[in-house]
């Protein structure tokens, strides 16, 4: 105890939190300043500065046209995300429980995860035609694999005693999944959902940016084509804000709680 000196004392939790909040505010101000600098440097031909963008955005959300496009994106994305999550969860559980099938499938899935899937979009368009279903299918192509891989990994790393317990209790496969596997893998599943969320959003948006007539991705590209800089900047802002908000929410949900 004698060598306890005052410069070694850690700052209290409250003051550390205050420093952190201060730094976060500085960071946000820096990013806004950078945005403003890029905007004024190009004199608004490429990126419109923060304040005009926000005022434009407030005008935009009062138009019917914006909500029409937003609804198209939202519907395609919701369907793509739901399909990726459900099919991915089911596939992950099956491949996790059936070890050999999992060993066969995992490298194929991991390989598919790293290829540039955009190159396959024309095939999707040829198969599904222009429109909603192609966007959904492309979103699922992006979102399905991470969900499957995360679930598979979680099931594989489960303590074997849990599966033995299920066997001893003679639970049916369905109940084993519902009562044992899913609750035990929940944090990993939430992580998979988080990745799958952002990738299926990416898939839907890329789908809309390439030969599409509706949706936020289309609005972004058309804003650029018509030199409507505030429009494209506003759309990017909306997408970034929504993505970060959803990700933060899911990070909170996935954090293991103290028991």
């Amino acid at each position, binding site marked *: 105890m004698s060598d306890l000196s005052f410069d070694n004392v850690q700052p209290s939790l409250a003051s550390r939190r205050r420093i952190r909040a201060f730094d976060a505010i500085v960071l946000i101000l820096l990013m806004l300043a950078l945005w403003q600098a*890029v905007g004024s440097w190009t004199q608004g031909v490429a990126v419109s500065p923060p304040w005009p963008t926000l005022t434009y955005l407030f005008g935009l959300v009062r138009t019917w046209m914006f909500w029409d496009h937003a609804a198209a994106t939202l519907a395609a994305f919701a369907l793509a995300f739901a399909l990726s999550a459900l099919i991915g969860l089911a596939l992950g559980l099956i491949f996790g429980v059936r070890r050999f099938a999992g060993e066969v499938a995992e490298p194929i899935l991991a*390989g598919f995860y790293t290829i540039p899937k955009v*190159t396959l979009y024309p095939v999707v368009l040829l198969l599904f035609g222009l429109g909603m279903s192609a966007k959904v299918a492309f979103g699922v192509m992006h979102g399905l694999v991470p969900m499957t891989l995360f679930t598979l990994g979680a099931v594989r790393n489960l303590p074997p005693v849990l599966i033995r317990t299920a066997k001893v209790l003679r639970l049916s496969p369905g109940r084993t999944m519902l009562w044992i596997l899913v609750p035990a893998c929940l944090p990993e599943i939430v992580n998979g959902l*988080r990745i799958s969320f*952002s990738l299926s959003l*990416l898939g839907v948006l890329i789908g809309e*940016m390439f030969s599409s007539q509706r949706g936020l991705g289309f609005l972004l*590209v058309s804003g650029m084509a018509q030199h409507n800089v505030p429009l494209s900047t506003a759309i990017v802002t909306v997408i970034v804000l929504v993505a970060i908000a959803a990700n933060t929410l899911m990070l909170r949900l996935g954090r293991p709680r103290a028991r």
Partner: protein
Amino acid sequence: MTRRCAALLVRIAVLAGSIALLEICCRFGIIDPLTVIPPSEMVTSMIDHLGSGELNESIVNTFSTILLAFVLAIVCGTLAGALIHSSRRLRDVVDPLLASYYSVPTFIFYPLLVALLGLGKAPLVVLGVLSATPAVMISTLSGLDSVPPVLMKLARVQRLSPARALWWIILPSALPRLFTGFKLALSYALIGVIAGEFILSGTGLGYAISFAYQSFDNRAMYGTMLFVLLVAITANGILYVWEGRLARRRLRG
């Protein structure tokens, strides 16, 4: 080992079977040839287009862009990661940013980048760097975290110069994690650049595919597509095997 071999054999059988199935479905008209052409024809088309030399310019353009983005991402990402690792306070600020970075579809910045930098190589490189750098930063941070503190103490006891400590102590311990970041960086740079070319560009393999799609040239489209996918799979596969070797050497040493 035998189990791994068996899994490998079954995997090859599954892949070969699905290709054969696709071939049969296309040959017997179950799948419309206007939608998907038979795999054998994709291969011949790929060989034709590569042999005729019409893709050479696109290939050079695309891969030089990817390489540039990849190298820049590695340099920037490693330096930024090392900088952030050196300051606790900076790290507290940046960690949440890195955690939510990949939730934002970086690709939506591409139209803005084109407006900013003009149509050409520059926006593609920036897009590749934007999507690959954070992966390198994250892996640099986790690599530096994984250096055992006792080894750093050893470096201090031996009075190693910073350069020698980096070479003898830090790099060998951090390398496996760093390498994971490099592998991700390559696939992100590849995806970013080819997606950019595909959506909005005048050159490159991505553009060649979208051009062939828009001019209803299915044969050229599938040939180019197959080439891009084969290159991507080969590059990622080489890094994957290499990474496994590094990790195993780490376990042994």
